[in-house]
């Protein structure tokens, strides 16, 4: 009892504060602790004691107005009294009032008023609601250990301290104003506090749920209550915390509520608990979703809701109610886009909204993906519509969608078609027609095909005048080549099964004595097994292999149909172009916008092309590679890089299809041979040339000797006028060819004619269009000598290393880099390459008039500005000197001339005088 009294004293004391003793220094005897542990309820109020805040209030109050002070004092007194009452009540109830014994034999103490009082207390004090709840809960459920309790106490004190501080701080600011304002502030404070309390409550509930969802599932409902809070921020926070909780606790299966029958059955405790958990989860999830859907149209919550929906869908696409989620998300695609459209006028919002947009798009993608996995039958018709829907709204930013689609294309095959359809609608609408057409057709075809089919149609309608993105989408397709194989395996298995069955049958035949009962039982078993199998098939997400294969092949056929159409169109155009040369040239995307993605696609899917198409394909490629110049050479509409690309594709197609037969693509070699001359470093793409050199010349194992020599010679010659990157690529190729073809190394000898190797053509003909007839073996690679003096050190070393190769056949060379790599390296280096060392040499080499120009053009590359400035200054001083010199000289001339004239004049005068004198003498 002494302990209690002590506590009482402490409670009553406030006016004459006891000296502050730090918590740690208070020594508590073991007895006391035990006592407390036993009668925890007695010490409950201690937790709510806040000595420090009391101190502060007291000290502060001295400066405040009298009324306030009084009011505060009264209030505190009342509080204390109430607490005392409570304490007393407890005591009194126990000691004085007799407990009531019910019929069950339980004892009821009069504790009811206390329970009622407490919440009031809480409100008045502004104390934390959840603390009480937590205490109550703890009282009921577990007894805390000493250490835990202490920790808790400490924590609470700290929290309260903080709160008190906040209070005092804010109140101190507004000391002087009237009481009204003070009251308002207090109201605000309470609102804030409540919010804070709620937030803490939510956090606690959330963590509890996450710690042990099964036992704390009830608190989910409490958590949900917060979602209906009036405060916007609280609601948002509640929504988000609910999201986190749901995301974590939703199980990996779909919950099926027990039927009536099942409910009636007797189940174990564990199952009961499980069922309870599931049903609560489901109901609260439903409530949550409903809340989300109602809030969805509220502009304030829009983004939160979208985020919640998307995250839920992403995290648990399998769970119940996803059919409600999906349309919601799709609808949000729409609305968020509208927001974006508006937002574009306000640039500061654009980023945030586009993020939402992207997230929702990706969600939708995952949604359809899921759809495909789960309900192949339904989704086949649904999802394209969804996507069309999306795309229509995305239409203004179609290019971004297309780029997003590329990312999304890494998804399984079934999904891809959606993106086709979407990209289709983009393209269709961007062109202006054909949209309706697409809508109609979508409902008729399975989406797998529809995308490809639609693109094919669009291309057909618009006669290949579309944005390249339309076709580039195909590149992201992934065709599963193993489908056929697995099917074959299945066949094998079936065969085996059959064999087994036969064996079994034969066994049965050997032992035909089976009773009817047994047979019927067996039949029953087999029947049920079949049923189960059928169910499994229907339920399993895997699509039928045969069906998938069929769809895949059809899609493929559409894809190639498109490609061939583009190629054919290009060839026709190429053939007809020379006639209407001037009229239809131009256009932003070039004359064949679809050609380059088409070629890329053909190269990529080359291994899937039917052999029957091959001949046609090659024919068209050949025409294209020759630039459609079969009719006449005038004005081929294809650029050089496009034509080189054609050659590359032809080689790729051949390589990928024929491992057994080594086909020599002579025509394409000839084309490339001619294209090397037409290549211009600035105009055409160097990467394409490098790729061609790599694929056509370096990858081939064997070459005609003549052809190889011709290519070597031509590459060496043209590398003289290429940029450094292209020249490097060419030289790498030359080296490669020389390594492979030992006999071509005779070209390195300083001996014109080539001896017996040169064949029928004795003299090298540099302009011959056929490498076989160029007689390159009779030539000498004198270019290497020049290249060894190249301004770029790498090229000069490369050239000299090539020229050091000898004709001895057993030299072994290490494999070098590919021309593509070389090109890339040097194209990068070109930007940073410093040629300051060579400026002098260059200026020496070139004529005087050009040298300044050359230096001026190269100046941005060279960084030696000061030196240059000096040089320029020198130059100009010299020039000025010359000019001055000339002026002086002219003056000198003038003066000398005038002097001379003067002299002459003098002479004349003298002579004149002399004459007159003589005359005078004569006269005299």
């Amino acid at each position, binding site marked *: 009892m002494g302990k209690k009294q002590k506590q009482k004293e402490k409670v009553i004391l406030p006016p004459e504060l006891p000296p502050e003793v730090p918590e740690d220094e208070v020594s508590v005897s073991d007895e006391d602790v035990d006592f407390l542990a036993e009668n925890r309820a007695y010490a409950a109020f201690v937790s709510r004691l806040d000595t420090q805040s009391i101190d502060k209030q007291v000290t502060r109050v001295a400066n405040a107005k009298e009324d306030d002070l009084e009011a505060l004092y009264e209030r505190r007194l009342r509080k204390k009294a109430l607490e005392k009452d409570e304490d007393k009540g407890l005591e009194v109830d126990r000691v004085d009032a007799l407990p009531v014994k019910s019929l069950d034999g339980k004892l009821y103490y009069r504790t009811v008023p206390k329970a009622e009082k407490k919440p009031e207390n809480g409100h008045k004090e502004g104390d934390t609601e959840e603390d009480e709840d937590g205490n109550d809960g703890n009282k009921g459920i577990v007894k805390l250990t000493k250490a835990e309790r202490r920790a808790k106490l400490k924590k609470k004190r700290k929290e309260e301290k903080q709160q008190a501080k906040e209070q005092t701080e804010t109140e101190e600011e507004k000391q002087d104003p009237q009481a009204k304002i003070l009251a308002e502030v207090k109201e605000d404070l309470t609102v804030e506090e409540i919010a804070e309390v709620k937030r803490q409550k939510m956090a606690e509930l959330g963590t509890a749920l996450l710690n042990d969802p099964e036992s704390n599932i009830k608190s989910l409902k409490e958590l949900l209550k917060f979602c209906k809070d009036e405060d916007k921020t609280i609601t948002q926070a509640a929504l988000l915390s609910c999201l986190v909780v749901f995301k974590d606790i939703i199980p990996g299966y779909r919950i099926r509520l027990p039927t009536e029958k099942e409910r009636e059955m007797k189940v174990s405790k564990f199952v009961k608990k499980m069922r309870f958990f599931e049903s609560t989860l489901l109901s609260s999830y439903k409530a949550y979703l409903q809340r989300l859907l109602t809030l969805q149209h509220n502009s304030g919550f829009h983004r939160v809701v979208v985020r919640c929906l998307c995250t839920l869908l992403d995290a648990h696409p399998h769970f119940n109610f996803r059919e409600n989620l999906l349309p919601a998300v799709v609808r949000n695609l729409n609305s968020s886009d509208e927001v974006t459209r508006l937002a574009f006028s306000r640039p500061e919002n654009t980023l945030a909204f586009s993020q939402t947009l992207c997230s929702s798009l990706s969600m939708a993608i995952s949604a359809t993906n899921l759809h495909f996995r789960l309900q192949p039958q339904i989704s086949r018709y649904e999802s394209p519509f969804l996507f069309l829907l999306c795309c229509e709204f995305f239409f203004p930013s179609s290019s971004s969608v297309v780029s997003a689609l590329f990312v999304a294309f890494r998804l399984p095959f079934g999904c891809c078609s959606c993106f086709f359809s979407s990209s289709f609608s983009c393209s269709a609408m961007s062109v202006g027609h054909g949209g309706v057409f697409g809508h109609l057709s979508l409902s008729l075809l399975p989406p797998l095909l529809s995308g490809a089919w639609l693109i094919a149609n669009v291309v057909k309608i618009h006669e290949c005048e579309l944005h390249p993105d339309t076709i580039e989408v195909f590149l992201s397709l992934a065709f599963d080549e193993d489908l056929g194989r697995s099917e074959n395996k299945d066949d094998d298995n079936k065969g085996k099964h059959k064999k087994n069955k036969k064996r079994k049958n034969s066994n049965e035949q050997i032992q035909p004595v089976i009773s009817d009962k047994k047979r019927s039982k067996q039949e029953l078993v087999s029947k049920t097994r079949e049923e189960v199998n059928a169910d499994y098939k229907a339920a399993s997400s895997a699509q039928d292999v045969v069906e998938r294969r069929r769809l895949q092949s059809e899609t493929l056929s559409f894809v190639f149909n498109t490609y061939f159409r583009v190629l054919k169109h290009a060839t026709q155009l190429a053939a007809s172009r020379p006639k209407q040369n001037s009229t239809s040239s131009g256009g932003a995307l070039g004359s064949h916008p679809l050609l380059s993605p088409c070629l890329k696609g053909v190269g990529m899917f080359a291994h899937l092309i039917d052999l029957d198409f091959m001949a046609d394909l090659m024919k068209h490629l050949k025409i294209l590679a020759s630039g459609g110049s079969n009719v006449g050479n005038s004005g081929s509409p294809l650029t050089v890089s496009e034509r080189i690309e054609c050659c590359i594709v032809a080689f790729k197609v051949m390589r990928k299809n024929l491992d057994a037969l080594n086909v020599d693509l002579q*025509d394409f070699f000839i084309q490339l041979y001619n294209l090397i001359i037409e290549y211009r470093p600035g105009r055409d793409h160097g990467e394409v040339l490098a790729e061609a050199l790599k694929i056509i010349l370096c990858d081939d194992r*064997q070459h005609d000797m003549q052809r190889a020599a011709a290519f070597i010679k031509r590459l060496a010659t043209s590398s003289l006028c290429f940029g450094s990157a292209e020249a490097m690529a060419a030289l790498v190729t030359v080296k490669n060819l020389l390594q492979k073809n030992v006999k071509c190394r005779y070209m390195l000898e300083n001996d014109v004619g080539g001896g017996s190797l040169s064949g*029928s053509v004795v003299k090298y003909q540099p302009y011959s269009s056929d490498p076989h007839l160029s007689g390159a073996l009779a030539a000498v690679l004198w270019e290497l000598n020049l290249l060894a003096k190249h301004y770029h050190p790498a090229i000069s070393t490369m050239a000299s290393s090539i020229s050091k190769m000898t004709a001895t056949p057993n030299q072994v060379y290490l494999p070098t880099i590919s021309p593509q790599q070389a090109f890339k390296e040097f194209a990068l280096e070109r930007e940073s390459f410093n040629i300051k060392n060579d400026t002098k040499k260059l200026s020496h080499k070139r004529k005087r008039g050009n040298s300044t120009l050359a230096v001026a053009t190269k100046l941005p590359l060279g960084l030696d500005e000061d030196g240059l400035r000096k040089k320029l200054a020198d130059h100009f001083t010299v020039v000025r000197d010359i000019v001055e010199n000339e002026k002086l000289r002219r003056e000198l001339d003038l003066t000398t001339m005038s002097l001379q004239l003067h002299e002459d004049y003098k002479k004349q005068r003298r002579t004149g005088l002399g004459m007159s004198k003589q005359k005078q003498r004569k006269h005299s």
Partner: protein
Amino acid sequence: MRTLDEQETTVVFEKLYKFVGNNLKNIVENPSHEGPDPNPGRYCFRLQKNRVYYVSESLVKRATNVSREKLVSLGIQVGKFTHHGNFHLTVHALSLLAPNAKHKVWLKPTSEMSFLYGNPVLKAHLGRITEDINSGDGIVVYSMSDVPLGFGIATKSTKDCRKSDPNSMVVIHQADIGEGFMIDDGFVEFGTSVYV
């Protein structure tokens, strides 16, 4: 020795065209540096004793000095006319066809000998084949080291080649450089008895 008449010319050119395609122009217009003449002359086709020769003009001038009966051979023999009036190419034409050939086949080293013994080229023998061959085209056969071995007629297009089994015939043998050793018959008869 006389020039070919129109009919003979078409027959010869058609035959050559099968092998060299548009490169026939190169064969006809090829400048010759033979002889002491300062201006390069041309090559022309001459018929002598049913055999067609590819001769430089300067040589033709000089060969007129020799009587028809005494003239055994001149220039490069291209082929010969049979009694039926058909034209057959002989091995000697290989030096003319090889540099200008349009359709080529490269043989694996193991199967070279088989071809040189007069056997047709099977698919299994192919080391490489030019694309775009149609059946009936003339094909020049090379070894893998680019030595021309002979020529023949394609029985299959390149496309069909892919599908056919390895033992199917691809090129019918017409002439090869092994004939000189097979038929020990002296220089003039070299290559002729195959077709007689």
